[in-house]
């Protein structure tokens, strides 16, 4: 009969062996990985030394360099593509983009990108989309729009990046419709709308009229791309929308700027019971010096909830002499409101 000690003795050797093999294989894995990384780095350095000067010359329209690049071995093409396209992430100069596109076209690298777009591996599709976006090759807008429905979230993110880079009016409806798509990154949706700027506004307004249930999203989009043309709709939403819609519409008015009607609506919104709406209204009134006068209503709100008071102080400060006068009056007080007013009036040069 086996005793517990016998069992332990039997287990000891396999455990020791397993520990030994684990330690050895982990160490060997690190050594192999480091060797692979070293070889990869060496290869990259050599290819860079060989092709970077050619790439520079090709971008400067040197035909010999272009021919030399075209004659390169097929296995080097991806590295050349990286040398050509990666700098476009930081260098968005249109001339540079156009010349890169020309060289990429001459090397038929777009065919490689097309193949990658059909790859089963999501990261290849994402890389191809980002590269085509950086190249601003609008022949691939449809591919980028289609990729917004890709099963991989990362490919969808890359597609939005590409559409923001391409800025193709043909893709505008797809971008605007996707404003509500929570399967896409919020920041990227906003960035895509921002890339189109005011061009997106009419479509956003049209959709907001049809799709009243999602007006908050459209109001937020107008805070990015809205212009004076959006003011009437925004004023309507401030006057008769839900709490979130009113706050979002006021934020959009802060972006578009005010006219007398919008200012009247914003001043009225200062008196609503919801502090978030009052704070948004105060922020929207920043710098408004026209009629109706917003100085006195804003000054009254220096005693309000803190976010409202802080927004009112900033708005008064942005108004120039009239706002400054109201702040000076409040600055005489010794409480938090007085301190807030003094903070808004404070200038480092005055104290130094």
């Amino acid at each position: 009969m086996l005793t517990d000690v016998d069992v332990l003795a039997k287990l000891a050797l396999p455990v020791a062996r397993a520990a030994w093999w684990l330690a050895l294989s982990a160490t060997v894995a690190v050594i192999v990985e480091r060797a692979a990384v070293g070889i990869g780095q060496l290869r990259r350095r050599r290819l860079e030394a060989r092709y970077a000067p050619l790439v520079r010359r090709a971008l400067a329209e040197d035909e010999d360099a272009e021919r030399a690049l075209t004659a390169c071995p097929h296995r080097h093409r991806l590295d050349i593509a990286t040398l050509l396209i990666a700098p476009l992430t930081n260098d968005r100069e249109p001339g540079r983009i156009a010349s890169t596109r020309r060289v990429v076209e001459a090397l038929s690298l777009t065919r490689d990108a097309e193949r990658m777009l059909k790859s089963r591996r999501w990261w290849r599709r994402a890389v191809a989309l980002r590269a085509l976006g950086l190249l601003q090759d609008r022949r691939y807008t449809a591919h980028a729009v289609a990729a917004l429905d890709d099963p991989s979230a990362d490919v969808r993110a890359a597609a939005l990046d590409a559409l923001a880079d391409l800025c193709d009016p043909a893709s505008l409806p797809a971008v605007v419709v996707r404003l509500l798509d929570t399967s896409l990154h919020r920041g990227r949706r906003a960035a895509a709308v921002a890339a189109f700027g005011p061009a997106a506004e009419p479509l956003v307004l049209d959709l907001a009229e049809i799709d009243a249930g999602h007006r908050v999203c459209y109001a937020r989009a107008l805070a990015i791309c809205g212009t004076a043309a959006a003011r009437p709709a925004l004023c309507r939403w401030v006057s008769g929308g839900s709490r979130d819609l009113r706050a979002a519409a006021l934020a959009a008015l802060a972006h578009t700027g005010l006219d007398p009607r919008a200012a009247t609506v914003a001043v009225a919104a200062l008196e609503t019971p919801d502090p978030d709406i009052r704070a948004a209204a105060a922020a929207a009134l920043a710098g408004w010096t026209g009629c109706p006068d917003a100085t006195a209503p804003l000054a009254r709100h220096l005693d309000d909830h803190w976010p409202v008071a802080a927004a009112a102080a900033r708005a008064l400060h942005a108004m120039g002499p009239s706002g400054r006068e109201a702040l000076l009056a409040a600055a005489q007080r010794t409480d938090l409101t007085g301190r807030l007013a003094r903070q808004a009036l404070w200038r480092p040069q005055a104290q130094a």
Partner: protein
Amino acid sequence: MTPGQRGGLIVMALTTAYFVAWAVTQLAMAAVAAVWTWRYRRRQSRRARLLVERVAPPLVSIVAPAFNEELTIVHSVRALLALDYERREIVVVNDGSTDGTLALLQRTFDLVRAPVAYVQPLPSAPVRAVYRSARDPALVVVDKANGGCKADASNAGINAARGELVLVIDADTVLEPDALTRVVLPFLEDPSTVAAGANVAIVNGCGVTDGRLTSVALPRSRLARLQIVEYMRAFLLFRPACAACNSLLILSGAFGLFRRDALIAIGGFDRTAIGEDMDLTLRLQRYYRAARLPFRIAFDPAPLCATQAPEDWQSLRSQRRRWRRGLMQVLWRHRGMIVNPRYGLVGLGSLPYVAIFEGLAPLLEFVSYVLMMVALLLGAVDWRHYAAVVVVWSLLGTAVTMTAVLLNDLVTGRYLAGTDLARLVVTALVENCGYRQLNTWWGFIGTVQALTGKGGWGTMKRRAFQGTP
């Protein structure tokens, strides 16, 4: 076999089983972390900056509590002012320093006393004055009475912060220039993100000029190297594995970005917590999970910042004892979450793991060391058996550490020089032959201190950065 021999063997077997369980769990986490890290690497593009430029990025307030930091504070603030993220303000909180920290800041950055109004939703020791820089309006210095802990100073900084996001760092944290741009990304991508952290590297051995890393190298100090492999295991095995299932338990106090409203909702940092960073992260988990609100705590495995590790035994000892006390306190406070399905994978996965393999580890290890030594001295255990057990522990430890080194290579590309590998392998082996046992002892003392309510914050000897002019 005598009963004594049998008892000795059983103790050895149980201790080895504990080590095997630890190693298996670590390697399982390594597998999860490897998949997650692989995906992270594939996701990486150089577009973070472009994206941040296109949208209106959120204002980020960087809160840097400083207590007697005159050696490093100027370089740290200069580096913060040079970050490549425009919408940021820097709130340095002078936590009643007794050295020249405040005077140095005043002189260097032309600080002038400014009226600053803000409500104080979070408790902190009284604020004496608020200064603004005449040179750079983004710099605010809050001078307050010493609150006795970083949590108090952090709360004062959060109160003064205007940003919707608050980055809480240590005053001597060295940030990468794009750290802020990268750590803000999860907030731009996913509106449910409430906090984000990153891998914290060790700055010892690296060149730092004007608060910026200029070169990366393994430190000469053996003690710092030992801590590097510890950091690798913590930041590249455990945290990515937890991040993969949104069950992070700690965002390092040296670098954590939070939504300000989330911080205020949970009452900010707890001034009575010793491990205030872990306590805060757990309270966030608790708050959002209990309320069934959607939330995400994100983690970037890239080393976006670096911090000084102690290079003398005394500082290390007091740091480890403090960490231990902090851990025990946090585990006790949040014991209701352990093995509680209401808290999802935090309650059923990461927190029980920490309780067993970190909370209980020093007690179990210390008791087993003592029992085995006694058995060895009494002749109840053959010394060859004992040696075999120690070798198995060391090999398992080495396997886990080398896995962390592998992930470190893939994520950070640091310490890739030829001699670095040899040094790391030696460090991984040496760690199990004395250092680990020493840590167990400190942990044991820290646990006793936690139970008896003794022990203070301790001090760490700061060093000026290498390469600092």
